[in-house]
């Protein structure tokens, strides 16, 4: 049998194991190991520890657990509730005000967390029950949170950009800069959508009676101000070049401990322990996938799949934009079947050489890829944000959650078209800081 068949069988094994609820990191490693064994024989299995060491000791990954810790510490300060309260005082008069507030808080929360599921969990736990109480339709309420939670991946700091940097060698700082405008644009599009929707169908999102004074609005802002300043300082240090993203993560997290402990006074022993425990859980779970995805990738390298893909793509006698569109469609389909981190880690090494050969900027492609992941986390059957939503608000029907997320897939597809038509939306900021 030829290598191509072995690769195909390994991919099949991967999908079967994922469907069997095998932890993703086990599924990736075992299918990678099976492929390596078939292609290179037992001796090639020594590639397994080499691949794990090489990928997990990639220095750019140092930023990953630190930004996760950063987000966990700030979340422990009760900032999520503070953000939502503030957003609600500012947005409650617009149609769909609660949903717009949820999207607004997800946007800001996304600037302090690199992981979309924690955003969904923190914002969803507060905002969705509130919306349901006020007569919002479940689909509208849950969709807004499940989709906007993913903004954490596009708005820096972003774990996905760190992972992309670790497999492609692109600069984390430039990727962070590249994600900022598309992230804000996507937030605005999502907000615009709920407002228009609430205006057209008021029954889905009844208007609010409450009125807030300007004093109340600013008081709510004051509460979240120290944390917001910290976020601005961390991102500012990266954009002005004072610190690398990793340095900013280390110092910023130390400062986050100080702010949460001294200003918000919400750091006792138990909280510190909980913060570290959940940091280890989130980063351990993600980094296990990072390492094992590389085992899988090394199997593809051994079979020369990336070379073959680049050669095939370059040999196609069509416009590079047609190829790009085909790649985006493929990613949409794969995004239904595989989780975001694995999708990024497996396809980036295979596709980036091909995309570069077509003459596209790998930094820009990285941002497109993350917009694809925004879709992947809300498309069934494998859409982590959907199930996170369901698990934090158990009274929701999963069918409503799925339905509520659908319009956002269209919005994100629209954003992709915009980013292809106007690449400057992505490249403008990175070029300034470069």
């Amino acid at each position: 049998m030829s290598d191509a068949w072995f690769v195909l069988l390994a991919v099949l094994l991967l999908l079967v194991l994922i469907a069997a609820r095998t932890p993703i990191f086990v599924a990736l490693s075992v299918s990678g190991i099976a492929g390596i064994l078939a292609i290179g024989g037992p001796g090639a299995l020594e590639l397994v520890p080499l691949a794990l060491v090489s990928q997990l000791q990639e220095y750019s990954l140092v930023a990953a657990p630190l930004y996760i810790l950063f987000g966990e510490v700030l979340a422990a300060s009760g900032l999520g509730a503070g953000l939502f309260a503030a957003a609600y005082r500012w947005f409650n008069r617009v149609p769909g005000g609660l949903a717009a507030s949820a999207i607004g808080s997800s946007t800001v929360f996304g600037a302090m967390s690199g992981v979309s599921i924690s955003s969904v969990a923190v914002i969803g736990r507060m905002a969705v029950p509130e919306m349901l109480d006020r007569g919002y339709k479940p689909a509208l309420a849950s969709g807004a949170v499940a989709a906007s939670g993913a903004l954490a991946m596009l708005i820096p700091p972003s774990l996905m950009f760190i992972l992309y940097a670790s497999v492609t060698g692109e600069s984390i700082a430039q990727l962070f800069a590249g994600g900022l405008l598309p992230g804000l644009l996507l937030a605005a599009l999502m907000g615009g959508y709920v407002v228009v929707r609430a205006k057209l169908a008021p029954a889905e999102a009844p208007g609010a009676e409450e009125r807030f004074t300007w004093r109340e609005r600013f008081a709510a802002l004051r509460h979240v101000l120290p944390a917001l300043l910290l976020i601005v300082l961390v991102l500012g240090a990266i954009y002005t070049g004072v610190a690398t993203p990793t340095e900013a993560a280390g110092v910023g997290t130390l400062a986050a401990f100080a702010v949460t402990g001294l200003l918000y006074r919400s750091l006792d022993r138990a909280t510190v322990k909980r913060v570290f425990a959940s940091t280890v859980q989130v980063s351990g779970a993600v980094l296990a996938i990072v390492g094992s995805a590389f085992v899988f990738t090394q199997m593809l390298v051994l079979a020369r799949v990336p070379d073959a893909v680049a050669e095939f793509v370059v040999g196609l006698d069509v416009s590079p934009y047609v190829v790009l569109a085909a790649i985006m469609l493929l990613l949409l389909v794969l995004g239904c079947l595989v989780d975001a981190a694995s999708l990024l880690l497996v396809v980036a090494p295979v596709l980036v050489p091909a995309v570069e050969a077509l003459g596209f900027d790998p930094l820009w492609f990285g941002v497109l890829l993350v917009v694809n992941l925004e879709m992947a986390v809300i498309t069934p059957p494998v859409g982590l944000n959907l199930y996170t939503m369901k698990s934090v608000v158990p009274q929701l029907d999963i069918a409503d959650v799925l339905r509520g997320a659908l319009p956002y897939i269209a919005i994100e597809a629209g954003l992709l078209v915009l980013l292809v038509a106007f690449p400057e939306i992505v490249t403008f900021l990175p070029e300034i800081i470069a």
Partner: protein
Amino acid sequence: RDPIAATYIPESYDDLYPGVEHFLGALHRETGGERSYEVFDAGTLLGAEQLLPGLLMDIAELIFQTSSYVSSSYPALSVMELPFVTGNFAQHRRAIDPDGPLHAEINDQLRPRGLRLLGSLPTSLEYLWTAAAPIREPADVRGMRIRVAGEIEGETVKALGGAPVTMGSSEVYEALERGTIDGLMSYVGTLVSRDLQQIVRYGTVAHFGAYTFDAYCRADWYEQQPEPVRRALRAASRSLHRQGTDSMLAVHERDYLPAIAEAGVQLVEPGARELAAFRRATAPVHEKWRAAVGPAVADRMLARVDEA
């Protein structure tokens, strides 16, 4: 399937990559087409830090690797990396000839620990490149953060009073731009392949270090090869050392040096007095290395270098 040869150098490094092709081409030719390799370059299968373990664990049969990655584990290899160890590049190149006595001496040291150096392409000498202020004498280095790739380079920077910084070569441009580092120690190839001449303003031309781009195999694997194959391997090593070095020098002459000049990098050539001061300041690096390989071995190796 063909055995694997691996390197972290991508094909786009047009000064060093031809060395790989000369080696494998000669090996293929000399064995009458019998030995051909499946080449994984650009670190796709084994990254820079995984080449040596990958070789020792038999993933790859041959690796092409820069000495600075290997010499931390095998200090005998550092003899050619020492600051001011030779008077000039021509002597440097003669010293590391695969048919010469130093090459044999190095392999005597590597063999007990399972490694064999097949042949070397000496890269051109390493200068100190800085972005803000020129280095004219050792005192100028004090307090500077200098990016280095290997242990001996790091010790040299320390001996000069600077702080060595380790980072991937892809990060150097940004780090220079932001002042995370003040300069780097490297040969012209690293400078130009990362476009650093655009941001570096001064280069201090002296023999602060040097490394070799080498072909390695396992010692026991080499012993097991039939004599005709070993002969072919020696011919391939000669080809790496001769044609490989020639094509590196030609590329530097034709493209790299003009690119550096065109970017307006100012070359500082220290006078005899300053050179002597640099030599004195870096003497502790030689002492540390002597202690690492043992004085008797060190003396023998240095004598071979002097004779070359």
